[in-house]
């Protein structure tokens, strides 16, 4: 039996909005709205035509195999890597206009930890916008930074050279820097990668507190076994979006199979506490 030539939705003529008409984007003021995002490194797309929407006060895990475009999705949304196509709205505004409401935690491995800086210097970077251009951090800023370090349990390390920290401690410092930004939307790239159990608990605690505070959290996440414990929403991607929604609806064996293909054994999927 051959496939029907007419695809679904093609029975009626389709009316398309004109260029620049952003009706579909303007109506929403959700913390993060992504429409048709495509990012390509060289001639190979890393993220292809992804739509996503994060509701306020939600905690979403972005899940997918290595090289599926999870980090690229965040970077594309923040304009850190150039977009080939697509529209982004942050709280209903273009990202540049809502930048002060967003905190981004890049991958720990992306920076040079041998840089001559102390822990508190890194956290103070989060106050860059608050301090303002051509000014230096004052006493008040240092107190804010210390308070943020306290929240991740790193206050005792404030004067330590960053190269002397363990991986987990580095990750906590990054989180403290994001807290210093006092944002409404937190985007974290692999915050649990290569950290010890104590750090993982500490980070989860901080993120939960943010969520309770009606902040929105989005994490690129790689550990499927903790998804249901830590998050209330998932976004499964592998180049394209496979599924998105509350953990109970979207985090299914079928969706995982579709996301990971042969790279995830059936047994492993069955072991996960999955919905449906």
């Amino acid at each position: 039996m051959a496939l029907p030539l007419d695809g679904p939705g093609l029975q009626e003529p389709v009316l398309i909005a004109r260029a620049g008409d952003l009706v579909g984007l303007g109506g929403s003021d959700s913390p993060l709205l992504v429409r048709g995002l495509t990012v390509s490194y060289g001639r190979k797309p890393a993220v292809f035509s992804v739509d996503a929407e994060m509701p306020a006060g939600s905690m979403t895990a972005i899940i997918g195999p290595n090289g599926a475009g999870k980090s690229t999705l965040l970077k594309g949304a923040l304009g850190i890597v150039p977009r080939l196509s697509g529209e982004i709205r942050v709280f209903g505004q273009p990202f540049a206009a809502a930048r002060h409401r967003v905190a981004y935690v890049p991958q720990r491995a992306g920076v040079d930890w041998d840089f001559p800086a102390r822990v508190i210097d890194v956290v103070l970077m989060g106050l860059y916008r608050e301090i303002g251009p051509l000014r230096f951090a004052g006493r008040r800023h240092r107190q804010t930074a210390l308070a943020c370090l306290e929240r991740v349990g790193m206050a005792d390390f404030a004067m330590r050279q960053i190269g002397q920290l363990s991986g987990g401690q580095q990750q906590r410092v990054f989180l403290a820097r994001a807290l210093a930004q006092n944002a409404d939307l937190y985007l974290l790239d692999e915050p649990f990668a290569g950290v010890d159990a104590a750090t993982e608990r500490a980070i989860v605690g901080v993120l939960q507190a943010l969520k309770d505070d009606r902040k929105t959290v989005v994490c690129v996440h790689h550990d499927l076994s903790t998804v249901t414990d830590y998050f209330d929403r998932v976004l499964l991607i592998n180049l394209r979006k496979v599924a998105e929604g509350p953990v109970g609806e979207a985090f299914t064996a079928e969706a995982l199979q579709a996301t990971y293909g042969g790279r995830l054994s059936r047994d492993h999927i069955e072991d996960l506490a999955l919905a449906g």
Partner: protein
Amino acid sequence: MGADFVQLSLTPIVIGTLACIACALPGNFLLLRRQALIGDAISHVVLPGIVVAFLITGTITAWPMMLGAAGAAIIAVGLIELIRRLGRIEPGAAMGVVFTTLFAAGVLILEMTDTSGVHLDVEHALHGNLESLVWFDATGWGSLLDGQALAGLPPQVLRLAVVTAAMALFIVLLWRELTIATFDTVFARSMGIATRAVGFALVVATAVAAVAAFDAVGSIIVIAMFICPPAAARLMTNHLPHQVLWSVVFAVLSAVLGYVLAGYGPGWIGHSHAVSAAGMIATVSGAILALACLFGPERRRTGQAAEGA
């Protein structure tokens, strides 16, 4: 330490010291950004810039030369970036292609043009002529207060003083942008810091410093001033403000010690002729770096950074 010293040695020492400081300041950030060799590339293209400026204006007055050299540096950095992107070639190789070619073109044009009437030759361009920057009008320390004598100071003194002050101002004003963009580019961009513009500003600062110092020490030895004092300073401390201060200390030490050793050192061992001051300054800065490599308190990588490397 009398009139002779003031007339023959004081200005070269001051010029050498200012040149070293002006280069060491941006050098700190070049070092941390792993762009030490941008200093290398830029200093090589100062020569073609000056040669072309000479061809256009027909004179070797300071400002056209400075502009020509700064322009060449910016063109070179643009070309490196262009070749790196278009050809998808690693930055080191792209740099090598650009600066050798521009340098070759500069030498060739210089050799083909008649510059016999002016003080512009390849050798001078390569290793400078610090010794010639003497203060003819000085008669002793009192000349420092004598307006007429001061007017006869080599123009390099004022020029380097201005450039050094500009470098200090640049570092202080853009301190946070430079550190954040250097430490974590991705985060910096998410904060709205124009990381490319910051990088470009650093390149321009480097070019200005290289051009100003070029007169005194030539286009290759200036690389030592970009790299050696900050590199030695990095091995002394883990705190960036302290690193910058150490680099200034090492820059001053290299310049003064280098000049004194070059001018008076041969005499101490019974040799009558002085040796190249610029070469000696580079040598001393290298010796300081060697000592820092062997004994600097923070010479080794630590913790995670060491594992990662």
